[in-house]
C-alpha cells in the first residue's frame, strides 16, 4: 500500500515538474532577447567612459525572425555603440503578453524609461494617468519636419505629441495572382467585381477570401474598410470621434455589403475556428485567393517558406460605385510608437534615444520590406526593396486620408463591442439596421 502511495506522490511531483518546465518554456523568447542585448552591451561598456546612464526600454519585438525584431536590434546596437554614456537595456516579449505587461507596469508606476506602445485608444489611459512625457518641446529642433504628413495623428492627444512612430501600417487587398490567372478571373477593382470573383472561386472549390475570425480583428478589417468606402474617411473619423452618428445610412450599407459577401460564400467556411495564424497559413499555402490584411502580410508572402512567393499582388480595396470614399483612402496609419515615461530621471537622453531609434527604424524597416516609412526616407538603397513593399508604397503615394484600425481607435470596451458586433454580422445573427443602432450606443452612452 505504501509503495502505491509513494508512486502516487512521485507521479504528482513529476506532474509539478513538467508543468514548471512548460512555464519556463513560454518565457524563453524574452530571455534570449535579453541575453542578446546584454552581450552587445557588455562589449560596448568595456571600452568607454565611467558612470554611464542606463536607460531601460520595453518593446514587443521578440519573435526572432520577425522583420521588426531584426531592424530594431540593428538600430539599438547602433545607438549603444554611438552613445556609450547612455546605453539602453532592452526587454521584449511578444504582442498579447506585452499588452498585459505594459498596462500592469504603468498601473504599478513601474514603467521603464522608454516603452513601446500602440497609439490612439490603446495609450489614452496612459496619457490620462500622466504616465507619459509630452514631447512638443523636444520636437522644435527640426524633428517635426523630418516626419511625413499625418504621421503624428495617432500619437497626439489634446494637441500635444507624446510619442514618435516607427512605421506606417496600411491594409490592402492581397491577391494570389496565380490563382486569378489560372482560373481566368479578373482582379477586382469594384465591389461588384469582388462579388463576381468570390462566386467564381467558390464554384471552383477555391477559398475566395480567408478570414481568421476567431481572433475577431481580422473580420473587423472587412467591415471597417467597407465603412471607409461607404462613409469616406471623414465620415468614419466623425463617427469614431463621436461627433456623428453610426446609426446612418453609410454604416448600414457597409454592414449590408459585408453580409452580401457572406451570402455570396466569399469567406472560408472555417472562419470562426481559424485565427490570424491559420489565416496566414492558408493564404501563404496558396489555398485562398484573397486576403485583406495589413502590410505585414507582405513579409509572410515573400518569406522563403511561402508557397506564394512572387505570386502575390497588392491592390487597393475595391471601390463602390455610389459612395463617398475613393480608392485613395486607406485603412491604417502610424500606430507603432515609442514613448518616454514621465517618471524617467534622464529625460533628455531618453528623448534623444527615442528620436534616433524611431527614425532609423523607419528607414531600416522600409529597407527590409517589413514596414512602410513614416519618416522621410534617408540613406536607403531602394533597389533592394521587395516588390510587394514597392507596390504598397506606390499605392499610398497619393493617399487622401487614413482611418486607423477601429479597435485601436476606440477604447477597451467599445473596441470589444465593435468587434463582437461585426462577428455577429458575419454569422448573420444581426441585421444591418440593428448593427448600426448597437454601434451608435457606443456614442451616446455615459
Amino acid at each position, binding site marked *: *500500500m505504501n509503495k*502505491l*502511495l509513494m508512486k*502516487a506522490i512521485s*507521479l504528482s511531483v*513529476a*506532474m509539478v515538474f*513538467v*508543468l514548471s518546465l*512548460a512555464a519556463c518554456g*513560454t518565457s524563453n523568447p524574452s530571455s534570449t532577447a535579453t541575453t542578446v542585448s546584454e552581450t552587445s552591451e557588455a562589449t560596448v561598456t568595456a571600452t568607454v567612459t565611467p558612470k554611464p546612464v542606463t536607460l531601460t526600454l520595453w518593446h514587443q519585438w521578440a519573435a526572432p525572425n520577425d522583420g521588426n525584431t531584426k531592424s530594431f536590434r540593428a538600430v539599438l546596437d547602433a545607438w549603444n555603440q554611438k552613445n556609450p554614456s547612455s546605453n539602453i537595456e532592452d526587454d521584449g516579449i511578444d504582442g498579447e503578453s506585452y*499588452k*498585459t505587461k505594459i*498596462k*500592469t507596469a*504603468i*498601473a504599478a508606476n513601474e514603467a521603464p524609461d522608454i516603452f513601446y506602445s500602440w497609439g490612439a485608444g490603446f495609450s489614452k*489611459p*496612459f496619457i*490620462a*494617468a500622466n*504616465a507619459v512625457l509630452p514631447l512638443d518641446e523636444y520636437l522644435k529642433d527640426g524633428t517635426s519636419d523630418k516626419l511625413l504628413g499625418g504621421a503624428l495623428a495617432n500619437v497626439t492627444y489634446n494637441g500635444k505629441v507624446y510619442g514618435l512612430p516607427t512605421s506606417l501600417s496600411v491594409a490592402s487587398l492581397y491577391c494570389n495572382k496565380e490563382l486569378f490567372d489560372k482560373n481566368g478571373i479578373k482582379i477586382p477593382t469594384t465591389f461588384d467585381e469582388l462579388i463576381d470573383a468570390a462566386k467564381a472561386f467558390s464554384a471552383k472549390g477555391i477559398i475566395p477570401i480567408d478570414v481568421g*475570425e*476567431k*481572433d*475577431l480583428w481580422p473580420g473587423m478589417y472587412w467591415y471597417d474598410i467597407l465603412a471607409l468606402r461607404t462613409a469616406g474617411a471623414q465620415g468614419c473619423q466623425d463617427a469614431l470621434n463621436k461627433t456623428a452618428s453610426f446609426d446612418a445610412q453609410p454604416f448600414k450599407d457597409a454592414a449590408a455589403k459585408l453580409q452580401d459577401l457572406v451570402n455570396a460564400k466569399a469567406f472560408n*467556411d*472555417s*472562419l*470562426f*475556428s*481559424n485565427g490570424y495564424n491559420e489565416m496566414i497559413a492558408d493564404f501563404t499555402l496558396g489555398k485562398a485567393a484573397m486576403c485583406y490584411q495589413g502590410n505585414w502580410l507582405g513579409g509572410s508572402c515573400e518569406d522563403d517558406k511561402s508557397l506564394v512567393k512572387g505570386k502575390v499582388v497588392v491592390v487597393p480595396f475595391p471601390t463602390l460605385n455610389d459612395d463617398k470614399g475613393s480608392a485613395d483612402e486607406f485603412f491604417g496609419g502610424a500606430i507603432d510608437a515609442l514613448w518616454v515615461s514621465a517618471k524617467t530621471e534622464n529625460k533628455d537622453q531618453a528623448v534623444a534615444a527615442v528620436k534616433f531609434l524611431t527614425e532609423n527604424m523607419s528607414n531600416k524597416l522600409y529597407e527590409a520590406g517589413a514596414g512602410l516609412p513614416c519618416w522621410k526616407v534617408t540613406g536607403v538603397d531602394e533597389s533592394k526593396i521587395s516588390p510587394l513593399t514597392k507596390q504598397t508604397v506606390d499605392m499610398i503615394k497619393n493617399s487622401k486620408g487614413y482611418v486607423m484600425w477601429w479597435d485601436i481607435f476606440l*477604447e*477597451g*470596451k467599445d*473596441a*470589444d463591442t465593435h468587434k*463582437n458586433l461585426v*462577428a*455577429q454580422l458575419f*454569422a448573420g*445573427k444581426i441585421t444591418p439596421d440593428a448593427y448600426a443602432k448597437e454601434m451608435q450606443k457606443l456614442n451616446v452612452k455615459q
Partner: protein
Amino acid sequence: MDRVFGDKKAISLFVLPTLILFVAIIIAPIFLSGYYSLLKWDGIGKGVFIGIKNYRDLFINNSDGFGKSVGNSIILALLSIFIQLPVALILALVLARGMKGEGFYRTVYFIPVIMSTVVIGQLWLKIYNPDYGLLNSLLKGIGLKSLASDWLGDTNKALISVFIPIIWQYTGYHMLLMYASAKSVSEEIYEAARIDGASSFTTAVRITIPMIMPMIEVCITFAVIGSLKIFDLVWILTRGGPLHATEVPSTLMYNTIFNQYQYGYGSSISIFIIAECLIFTLILQRVFKSKS
C-alpha cells in the same frame, strides 16, 4: 522527533512560512479584489468608488451574457459528475482488481494529466480542424461526410466540443485518486467476500464503492470546483467564442479586465467565482454529511 512534533510552539514556527506565503499570495489578493470590485477603474488611472454598482450590473442589469457563462460552467460541472467521474470510477475499479498490464494502463490514463494544458489544447485544435483535422478525416473516411463540420466554429457544437477535451483531460486524475483509495481496502475483506461467493461485480458495488466513498466525495468536490473556475482549455480552444457560445465566467473575467479595461467590474466577477466555489463546497459537504 516526537518531542518536537509534540511541541505546539515548534509546530506553529514550522507552519509560519507557509502561512505567510498563503496569506500574501492567496488571501490578500482575494480581499484586494473585493475592494477593487467596488471601484469603477480601468486598471491604470485612479479608481472611483461606486459601491455595489458592479454587482448590480452583474446580476440585475447584465448585458454581457454573464448568466449564460455561469450556465455553461454548471453544464460542465454536471458533465463532470455524471460522465467523467463514473468513467474514472469504472476504470479505477477494473484496474484495482489487479488485471494484466495494470501499471501500463494506469500510466496511459494518467498521461493527459501530466501534459501541459497548452499542449492538449493544440492537440485538440488539430483534431477539430475543419480542413485537415483528424475527426473530420475520420468521418469522411467512414462515409459520414454529412456529419463533418467546423466543430469549434459552429455556435451549436462549440460548447460540447470544448468540454470533451476538458473531461478527457482530468478523467485520469480522478481515476488515480479512486484507484489508490480502492487499493488501500484491506485484502481480508475481499477474501471474506470471495469465500461467501460474491461475484466481482457484487464485490465492487457492495464493498469497494462504499469503502472508497470518502475519496469519491473528494473527487466530486474537485470536479465541481474545477468546472466552475475552468479557464485554460476554453481560452486556448475558442477564447469564449464563437459569438460567446463557449463563454465561462473566467474567460468573461479575462475579457472584461484585459480587453475592455474594466478592472472593477472584472474583479466583481472574480469575487463571484470565489463565492460560488465556496458555496458549492459547503452545499456538497452538507449533502455528504447527511448521507453518511
